[in-house]
């Protein structure tokens, strides 16, 4: 990581300085930093109560066989005690290599990876292309920009229903294809086409964010760099390759990371497009939801275990991604 300068004291951090003993450090720390801790206290409390406690409780649930038949519940006036029991890591073992683990976990896992890669790739390249087009001195580019942002401006739960009307069996998309004498796939019924339409709808929803962020990045590139490149006789492609792309590096690494996290966790598109009807097209998040809330009896323990696995995948991925970015940064510095 880079050396950051502590803005409060002007000290450089990241340099190695000899450390005093632990007790001394705690005492000094309290006197020196109590106001910092007072300021972060509200968030620390909120995170502790609303995130860490449920997380811990969820972790405990994954080690039990809790479902909607054996957890504590109230039916009418009768309170029924929880009767689920501790079963250790069986849930994880069952998910990862139990019988039919492929159908239940690995097929969704593979599809989730494909889904994330394809969606983020499409988001990024379409977004970049449109941003480059909008970054020119074109007539009416504000107008284009306003229209192109529309899919982001309208809430997803609204637009997905619009797509459902369009992709329905005799909806406008198939009518148009039929009119052109092209095959009319069953968008919302056939597994392949379900996946295809999910990717299509999500791409449609996600491009504007990428486009607007990358456009911001393009506009923040210093014009004198382009002038210098031009003086050196760089062609348009070379200016793109050696000025624009490096200039977009920090913005694009951020938006790609955000895009990957959001797409991996994308719930609304698939849930609203198919509801409970398409087991094959569910990514891990919606599948976990299906296990926990979309079926009877509700399998809380397995659902929570899927959640933990998802979180683990994301954390591992993000730390590798950041490490990889930092490594590249050092290479650039040399």
């Amino acid at each position, binding site marked *: 990581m880079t050396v950051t300068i*502590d*803005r*409060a004291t002007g000290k450089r951090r990241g340099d190695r300085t000899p450390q005093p003993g632990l007790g001394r450090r705690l005492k000094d720390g309290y006197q020196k930093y109590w106001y910092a801790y007072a300021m972060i206290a509200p968030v620390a409390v909120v995170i502790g109560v609303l995130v860490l406690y449920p997380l811990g409780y969820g972790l405990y649930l994954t080690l039990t066989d809790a479902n909607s038949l054996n957890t504590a519940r109230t039916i009418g006036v009768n309170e029924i005690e929880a009767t689920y029991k501790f079963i250790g890591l069986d849930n994880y073992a069952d998910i990862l290599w139990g019988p039919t683990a492929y159908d239940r976990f690995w097929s969704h896992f593979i599809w989730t990876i494909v889904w994330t890669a394809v969606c983020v790739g499409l988001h990024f390249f379409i977004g970049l292309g449109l941003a480059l*087009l909008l970054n020119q001195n074109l007539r009416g580019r504000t107008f284009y920009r306003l229209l192109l942002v529309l899919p982001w401006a309208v809430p997803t739960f609204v637009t997905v*229903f619009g*797509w459902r009307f369009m992709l329905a069996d005799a909806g406008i998309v198939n009518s148009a294809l039929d009119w052109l004498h092209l095959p009319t796939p069953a968008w919302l019924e056939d597994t392949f086409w379900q996946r295809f339409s999910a990717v299509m709808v999500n791409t449609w929803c996600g491009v504007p964010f990428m486009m607007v962020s990358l456009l911001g990045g393009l506009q923040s590139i210093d014009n004198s760099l382009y002038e210098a490149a031009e003086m050196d006789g760089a*062609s348009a492609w070379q200016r793109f390759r050696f000025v624009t792309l490096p200039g977009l590096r920090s913005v694009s690494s951020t938006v790609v990371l955000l895009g990957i996290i959001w797409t991996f966790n994308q719930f609304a598109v698939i849930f609203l497009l198919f509801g409970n009807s398409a087991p094959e097209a569910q990514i891990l998040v919606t599948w976990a939801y299906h296990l*926990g809330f979309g079926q009877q009896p509700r399998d809380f323990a397995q659902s*929570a275990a*899927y959640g933990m696995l998802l979180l683990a995948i994301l954390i591992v991925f993000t730390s590798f991604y950041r490490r990889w970015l930092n490594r590249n940064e050092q290479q650039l510095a040399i």
Partner: protein
Amino acid sequence: MSTTAVPTTAPAGPVAEPAAKPPRIRRRGERSRAASLASHGVLTVASLVALFPVAWLVYLSLGPDKDDYLHPGRIWSKMTLDNYAFVLQHTNFFDWLKSSLIVSLGTTVIGVMVAATTGYAVSRMRFPGYRKLMWVLLVTQMFPIAVLIVPMYQILSDLQLVDSYLGLVLVYCSTAVPYCAWLLKGYFDTIPFEIDEAGRVDGLSPFGTFFRLILPLARPGLAVAGFYSFITAFGEVAFASTFMLSDTKYTFAVGLQSFISEHDAQRHLMAATAVLVAIPVSAFFYLVQKNLVAGLTAGGTKG
């Protein structure tokens, strides 16, 4: 789709190649007519693609019959606003509006208020545990809903908070608070540190500096964090669908789904409701959109 008006024939080697120059290099800002036309063409097509699904929804909402979406041609001759009148008068539209606003505004207010001091602390101060806190803030933002939804459901059932506004607001705060703190840190980073120093020299405590000097300056940042929390809470589907059980407490995201049940699909009413929801939200979005993007990416890049 990623058409760029960039010729890709030139060698992609290092820039310094003095010999064998192409005769003329097109300068920036200079485009041939064809490139201009191509840009306009691509942008027009893309705009149409962006516009069409929304426009189609608006068009369908004008058809009076629930199966009109299958025969769009017929709508043209019998266009009517009856669906809107029906939705406003005979459905729970205003109940849903009330719940959506209570939940989203509640989340926004709590999120911003709780996160403000933390955003300032992590922007200005380095303290033991700083890195861990930043890590927690970052990781919390990428929680898939599947991680918290089951334990939250259990905990809220124990506390009798399922199907209550407070419960949903608390659930949303679990993502809104860390996110606001992260966004606000990005904004506080852009306020010059000299202002803090001036305040400290004049004898203000760190808290005084924050509340009297920095907070008033940070209003745009607070607004962005607020907008973002609002829009996220307004559009959230999973928790709202699971935790809100009585149909007068549905938020719009749940209410819209309730038009299509196993027995009946009132698609015309659904389309009308969708349009009624979309208009104010998108108008609001367009107003704040510029600030939103700057805030989102600034928070990330400076991590």
